[in-house]
């Protein structure tokens, strides 16, 4: 019931919005719908959390033995909660943004939320693929219609990349379907033991799609352009949630299904992750454009998550799940600041900004906290996740290079401190110039949503136990399937 509601509420809300012509009421309806989704998600976490409430299994295409099977496990709860929290935050923080044909903008936003929820809830591989593609379409239109100057080309690159990846994944899904006795059921896939030779190549059919989505170097080239050209509200969806689709899919659909493949290619993927992290961090240091800086920082962080998955141990997996949530919240916080600055001062260039802390102290304080969480300072949520991931990578029993992996990843954390603090310095400190002299304090909605993020940062940073408990069972189950091969 809960699972179906999480998809249906934004879906129906989105369809309804196409008929609402009034801009203001469209905004309110969108906000209301997203809050309703959040309420349902919280309800699923607390009160109605029996399996009967959380799962739904209906007939869909019986000829293919595919079912409309959606459900929530611990990991699903966590990532659905992230999706549910993000949308109200995004709507509130960008409340003052004006869009042409605003009702359609909000309608597509809600449709993308429905698609994302579907990806995270699907327990049937075909259904998963269905939503995986569907989540992309609204985002494609959002970015292409309301994006920046070079939006059409950038978004199309993004689309073609991910579409090609998805189709290759589809071939893999079909192959496994036949191997699993014509079943798309997740548990049937988990219990399937393919021989190592098959897993060896099958791994890449699936992983290519996920790697493009995350994105892992060298599949990342679509990402900075797409982030830069999309309207910031959409960029928040892209980097806060959509990127997590790739990480999530590796944990749910790749590692337990193809444990041998995951083990065999672990070091190769780790190498790609590390290369990407270093590469993205170095570029981020050199960036002058605020949006591109955050985009590259995102590549670096996601690389670490992927690295930790392939450590194949409890600490690594739990850290990844924790970090999926934390990074989602933190990066949305960074984007909110970027959006505020861009709409206010009309520029994203760091070199043209400076001295904003005097004019806008509240924003400065909040940004500093978010930024510190982004570089994983203790007491913030970023620390918990990253510490566990590092621990996982270091103590990994599946690779001989655990120490080296950790050392290189550690350098990236230092680099992330360099570019994040540099960004703060350039925006908020130093002398104010003609552009920033006229600065005014930030409006209440933005500060409110940033405050919510800061509260989340501290709560999960100081007391992460509930979250870790939530994902505990999922991690154990997945590791059980992964361990069978090692």
């Amino acid at each position: 019931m809960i699972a179906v509601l999480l998809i249906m509420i934004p879906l129906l809300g989105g369809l309804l919005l196409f008929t609402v012509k009034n801009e203001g009421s469209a905004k309110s309806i969108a906000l209301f719908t997203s809050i309703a989704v959040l309420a349902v998600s919280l309800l699923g976490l607390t009160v109605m959390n029996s399996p009967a409430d959380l799962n739904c299994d209906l007939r869909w295409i019986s000829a293919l033995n595919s079912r409309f099977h959606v459900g929530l496990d611990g990991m699903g709860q966590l990532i659905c909660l992230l999706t549910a929290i993000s949308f109200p935050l995004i709507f509130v923080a960008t409340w003052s943004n004006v869009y042409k044909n605003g009702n359609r903008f909000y309608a597509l936003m809600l449709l993308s939320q429905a698609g994302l929820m579907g990806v995270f809830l699907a327990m049937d591989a075909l259904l998963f693929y269905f939503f995986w593609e569907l989540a992309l379409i609204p985002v494609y239109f959002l970015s292409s219609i309301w994006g920046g100057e070079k939006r059409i080309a950038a978004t199309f690159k993004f689309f073609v990349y991910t579409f090609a990846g998805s189709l290759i994944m589809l071939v893999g899904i079909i192959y496994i379907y036949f191997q699993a006795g014509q079943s798309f059921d997740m548990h049937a896939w988990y219990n399937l033991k393919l021989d190592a030779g098959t897993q060896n190549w099958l791994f890449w059919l699936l992983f290519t799609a996920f790697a493009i989505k995350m994105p892992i170097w060298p599949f990342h080239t679509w990402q900075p352009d797409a982030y830069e050209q999309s309207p910031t509200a959409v960029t928040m969806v892209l980097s806060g949630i959509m990127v997590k689709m790739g990480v999530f899919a590796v944990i749910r659909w790749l590692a337990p299904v193809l444990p041998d493949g995951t083990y065999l290619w672990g070091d190769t993927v780790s190498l790609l992750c590390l290369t990407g992290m270093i590469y993205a961090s170095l570029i981020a240091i050199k960036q002058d454009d605020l949006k591109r800086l955050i985009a590259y920082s995102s590549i670096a962080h996601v690389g670490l998550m992927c690295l930790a998955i392939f450590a194949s141990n409890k600490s690594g997996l739990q850290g990844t799940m924790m970090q999926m949530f934390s990074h989602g919240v933190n990066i949305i916080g960074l984007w909110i600041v970027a959006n505020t600055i861009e709409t206010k001062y009309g520029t994203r260039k760091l070199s043209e900004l400076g001295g904003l802390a005097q004019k806008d102290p509240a924003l400065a304080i909040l940004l500093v906290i978010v930024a510190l969480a982004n570089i994983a300072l203790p007491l913030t949520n970023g620390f918990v996740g990253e510490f566990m991931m590092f621990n996982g990578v270091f103590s990994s029993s599946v690779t001989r290079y655990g120490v080296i992996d950790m050392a290189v990843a550690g350098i990236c954390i230092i680099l992330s401190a360099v570019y994040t603090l540099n960004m703060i310095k350039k925006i908020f400190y130093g002398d104010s110039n003609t552009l920033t002299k006229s600065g005014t304090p930030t409006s209440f909605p933005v500060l409110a949503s940033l405050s919510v993020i800061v509260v989340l940062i501290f709560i999960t940073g100081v007391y992460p136990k509930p979250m870790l408990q939530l994902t505990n069972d999922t991690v154990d189950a997945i590791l059980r399937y992964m361990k069978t091969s090692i």
Partner: protein
Amino acid sequence: MNAIIFSAIWGVLMMFSGIFIKTKAVIRNLAIAGVALLLVVNLAELNHLLNLHINVRGMLVFDSFGMLFNSIAFAATLIYFLLSARDIEDVGVNQAEYLALIFFVLCGISIASSFNTLLMLFLGIEIISIPLYILTGSDKKNLKSNEASLKYFLMGSFSTGIMLMGIALIYGATGSFAVVNLAKQLDGFAPVMMAGLLLLLVSMSFKVSAAPFHFWTPDVYDGAPTVFTSFMATIVKAGLFITFVRLFDAAYGPSLAQWRLTIAFIIAATLFIGNITAVFQRSVKRMLAYSSIAQAGFMFFALFGYNEYAKEGIILYAAAYSLATIGIFAILIKMKDYTFDGYNGLAKQQPLLAFVNTIFLLSLAGIPLTAGFFAKYYMLLAAVKSGAYLWLVIFAVLCAAVSAYYYFRVIQAMYFKEGNGQVKEISPGFKLVLGILAGLVILLGLFPQLLLVHLYF
């Protein structure tokens, strides 16, 4: 049998209606009623309700596969008439004759979808082809239309000759026209037989415009009046594919291993040429011609697969492809400018048209929630199940990703580019039918079994 009889009779009826009836609307409605009648009698036969039984001595066989496809073809033609019958009137003065020819084509499709001997195959294909030569050249004062017609006729008769030659060789080797026996005769190496089968394969590949026999397609599709291109590229093409699948299953299937490499080559070449060339087109009409070649590459997987998914898949593909392409063509006919730029800003002028066009294009690209997704999906299923040539499947999906490029160019023009795409007069009925068509595409994209279940009556 119902379909063959009624379509032939109605064709003759339409021919004479031109003499006795002077009102265009009456003739038009007569044709629409005829196709609706065809659909009804065919569905009645499919459901074993009404069957005009004629002893055909086993030369035709009416199974659910052929009849289900006939239903799809008639339903598609009905939609086609509802959307574009008025535009047929604009082509020339012989409105009744055009409609009569379309009925004869439908008659040919009904024969070709139920043939059981090579003789009937030949007859069916010829009944389809000859009216099409005329329809292609129906815009008599247009040089391009004439050129297309002549080209089509010459190339078409050439391939018919090849087909006859193949049939003759096969007859020489086996002493029979029966398709069923063909499979049994294939034990051991028989050069005459192989040559015959190869010629037959080549001529059929020509008819469905598979590479490297596709060269006529772009010119003919581009030169023919757009209403008839729409008919040719959808219903006729799907019909020919169904015929091909029938032939292949009976004649080639049992010794598939020998033919797989040939088919794989044709698939790879068709997909590659179709998709890559479509990318470079400026005119949407020509792009659709190449897209039809590219889609043919995917339909070829039905031959390659040779299992139950292949049969289900080709039915679904025929429906998905025909419905979507008819819709796109119907909108194209209403455009004043056939280039991609002609679509600029259409979403502002005609939101509904742009929206349904987007659904059709997404369906052709194979995005979930549209019929095109499951069509492609079943084809991949059939190919992967057969367990051979996984590289070909991966190549095919990469080509599908390329196809997104040119389909999305239309979407980009409609939604993201500034401009005022001009359209001709559009009636509310036209919009309604388009809306229903889009609804059908989405319905099949959610529940493909609604259609496929009829295969097992």
